[in-house]
């Protein structure tokens, strides 16, 4: 693709300050064409900021940038693009009201005379690009109708469209699952083969080890180490990232006693748009994992259980009582809470403080005499901050200023401040660094031990296997299998996820026992 010689990119002593925080305190980094450099670090280490500077989205306060030995200054995104640097952002950056082709060429449109759009040319070129990323959709499909995974693929196609000499991917797999990720890796390897430099950011250790040639680790906006991939191990990277040795990932949990009573019984619940109903029983203190490919319908199912959407048929029983939430409010009143997949959109009121977010669902209980009890609000939030180890100086900090991991902890904390019966965690560790992940796993184990039932939707196979008592696998909005803890293997789940086999083990007996 790219005819030019392999690029040599170097950033030296990059400093970036935001009001009140030094995001980067003098970071250096270099990468050559034909190499995959992994950039790792905890949430808030400064990875995205560094890459935004490289992509021209932010100016650096200090430091230099060299391309092929020549110093360059990027003032705007198009400067970087012109130099052949393509940045795929951590957050999806698509215009939902345009079609796929329009988004792929956004900012780099094919032009005819007088600024005229050359639509046919863009559509034709899009078709080729979509083919390369393995997205079998017409380029004229409106982006708002795509799934997150498909959108991610459009983003990647957009980077390819640039004919870039360097491609930066900031957590590209966070909304992809195994199959799509594998496809992406294939693309990355092809690009590397073509002499393109890749900078790859991910919190998923296996991916990084599998894919990269070299690993650079950041901590608190500084370089803390660099390893050739051949010498890297998970432990080495993690101890660089968090500054200490790191042992267990998943906490040990005793198997549930066979006579544990049922908590939530779901019977033939028909989610709008799904071909058939879903049935399962979750017991007290059980962690039920939900595995599936992107768009398998897990989020929709959870939203039905939480009352965001209403099922077309079926029923639910909670602790022996009929349970049919019409709104999240009803679910919350019944003790069913949801930590949503998209925490920025559904989980947090970003301009509010940690304390205000923590108290929000339960605020009605903070007004003993008609006045909000602000002191109690702060007290409760402080307790949660300590329990969840949220990194923030006070609970009066606005959540918009927290890093992703800490935001997720605020979401969990707000539900734990109440007393959940069932806690639904939709992708609880997406975009979260290993350290924070381990903490969240520990909290999940504690919650389960306290008798809380957890429904965990996750696209990370390891997490599903490591944490669940049982796993429900979904495929194309159908429940395709239930696996017990001892049956959990990557292959088995994978086979179910892709719809190759089917295994529904009926646990109705428990249903009738307890519901009666």
């Amino acid at each position: 693709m790219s005819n030019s010689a392999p690029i040599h990119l170097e950033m030296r002593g990059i400093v970036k300050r935001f009001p009140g925080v030094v995001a980067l305190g003098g970071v250096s980094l270099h990468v050559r064409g034909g190499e995959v450099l992994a950039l790792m670090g905890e949430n808030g280490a400064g990875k995205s900021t560094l890459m935004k500077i490289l992509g021209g989205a932010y100016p650096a306060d200090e430091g230099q940038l060299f391309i092929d030995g020549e110093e360059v200054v990027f003032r705007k995104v198009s400067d970087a693009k012109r130099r052949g640097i393509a940045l795929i952002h951590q957050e999806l950056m698509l215009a939902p009201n345009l079609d796929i082709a329009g988004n792929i060429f956004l900012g780099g449109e094919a032009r005819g005379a007088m600024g005229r759009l050359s639509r046919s040319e863009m559509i034709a070129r899009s078709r080729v690009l979509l083919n390369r990323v393995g997205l079998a959709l017409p380029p004229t499909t409106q982006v708002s109708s795509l799934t997150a995974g498909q959108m991610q693929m459009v983003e990647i196609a957009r980077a390819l469209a640039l004919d870039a000499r360097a491609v930066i991917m900031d957590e590209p797999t966070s909304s992809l699952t195994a199959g799509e990720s594998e496809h992406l890796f294939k693309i990355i390897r092809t690009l590397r083969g073509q002499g393109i430099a890749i900078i790859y950011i991910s919190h998923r250790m296996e991916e990084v080890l599998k894919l990269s040639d070299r690993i650079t680790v950041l901590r608190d906006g500084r370089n803390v180490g660099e390893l050739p991939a051949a010498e890297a191990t998970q432990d080495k990277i993690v101890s660089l990232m968090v500054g200490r040795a790191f042992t267990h990932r998943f906490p040990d949990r005793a198997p549930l006693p066979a006579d544990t009573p049922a908590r939530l019984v779901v019977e033939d619940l028909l989610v709008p748009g799904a071909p058939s109903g879903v049935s399962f029983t979750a017991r007290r203190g059980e962690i039920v994992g939900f595995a599936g490919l992107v768009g398998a319908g897990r989020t929709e199912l959870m939203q039905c259980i939480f009352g965001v959407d209403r099922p077309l048929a079926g029923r639910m029983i909670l602790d022996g009582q009929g349970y049919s939430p019409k709104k999240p409010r009803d679910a919350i009143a019944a003790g069913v809470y949801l930590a949503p997949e998209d925490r920025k959109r559904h989980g947090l009121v970003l301009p509010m403080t940690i304390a205000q977010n923590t108290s929000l669902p339960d605020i009605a209980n903070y007004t003993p005499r008609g006045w909000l009890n602000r002191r109690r609000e702060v007290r409760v939030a402080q307790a949660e901050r300590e329990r969840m180890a949220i990194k923030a100086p006070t609970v009066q900090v606005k959540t918009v200023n927290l890093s992703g991991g800490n935001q997720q902890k605020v979401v969990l904390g707000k539900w734990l401040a109440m007393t959940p019966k069932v806690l639904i965690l939709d992708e609880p560790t997406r975009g979260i660094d290993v350290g924070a992940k381990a903490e969240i796993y520990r909290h999940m184990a504690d919650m389960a031990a306290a008798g809380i039932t957890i429904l965990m939707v996750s696209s990370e196979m390891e997490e599903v296997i490591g944490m669940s008592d049982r796993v429900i696998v979904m495929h194309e909005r159908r429940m395709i299998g239930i696996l017990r803890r001892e049956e959990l293997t990557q292959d088995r789940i994978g086979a179910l996820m892709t719809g190759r086999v089917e295994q529904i083990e009926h646990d109705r007996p428990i249903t009738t026992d307890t519901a009666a």
Partner: protein
Amino acid sequence: MIGLRREFGMLVALVLMCLGLYLSNPDFLSQSNIVNTSRQISMLGIFAVGTAFVIITGGIDLSIGSIIGLTGVIIARLSSPSFDGLGLSLWIGIPVALAVAVLIGWIQGVLITRLDLQPFIVTLGGMLLLRGVSQTIVKGGTIGFGSSRFTELSDSGLLFCHGDPLISYPVIIFLAIVLMGAYVLHFTVFGRYVYAIGGNRDAAAYSGINVKRVETLTYVISAGLAGVAGVCYAAYIGQMSQQVGIAYELYAIAAAVIGGCSLRGGEGTIFGIIIGSGIMRVIDNGINMFQLKYQTPDGQHRIWRLDPNWNFIIIGAVILLAVIVDQLAHIVQLKRRTRRVAATGKGEAQPPEPGNPKLRPTET
């Protein structure tokens, strides 16, 4: 990006309205009424097109009415042959007035984009301030154009028939603007950026689009076209006072929304603007034209006409009805599609979410 559902629905409504008016009063389609109404539609349409650019980026421009007034007032002051005018050539007056309009749009755009201020409040300030400027220029009075050739701009035109033009100049100007506007909005890179910014401003910025420049330009276009409309109105009215143009921005916004623009940005077409302007002005005209012939019990022929007090009621009700009916149709359509999916058990291509074209859940 061009789903013309709303536009076609409104086109049908417009045609039905015209039909009803014609049946009630055949003079509705008389040459002279067609000329007048088409001129009215055109003068509204000219600045409604400008408004559309701003609205599609997700902004709003409340200063339009004041710009319309100011443009006319400047022309009157510079070029009126009357006592209060300076009597300069119209070739000076009109360009100066248009330049001022463009400059105002640019200043407002710069304030909104460079200082990151809210369009509503900047253009509200502009609206008041410019109204005051007009007032100061006419010193609280009126400046007429007298019998200057200027008024021909609105009264004369092409294709004379019985001594009157069939197509007045404002209509021609409007057609030119529609053609240019449609070209720019639907067929150029700039137009694409306008939609992209309205759809997802951050994504547009990260795509290397000069968001601030594009947005500023939309305010320049809006103000510039308001200026052009101001020229037409000045010619049409034949005299300027500080009152001309008050609340016209609301009519433009209403026309845009009726024609399918969403104030959330990212949606709307020039075609829709034409329909929206048509509906607004045909209502106006229809209130004067509508009549019902009836016989009193004692056999006398009488004609019932609309009470002029109902003017606002009808316009308000039509705006509300338009958005309500459109939304209900949309909801029914979504429900039907969900049911069809349930029936076939197939999840085909998903429709965009109801009126809220934001990105679906993804993650940090």
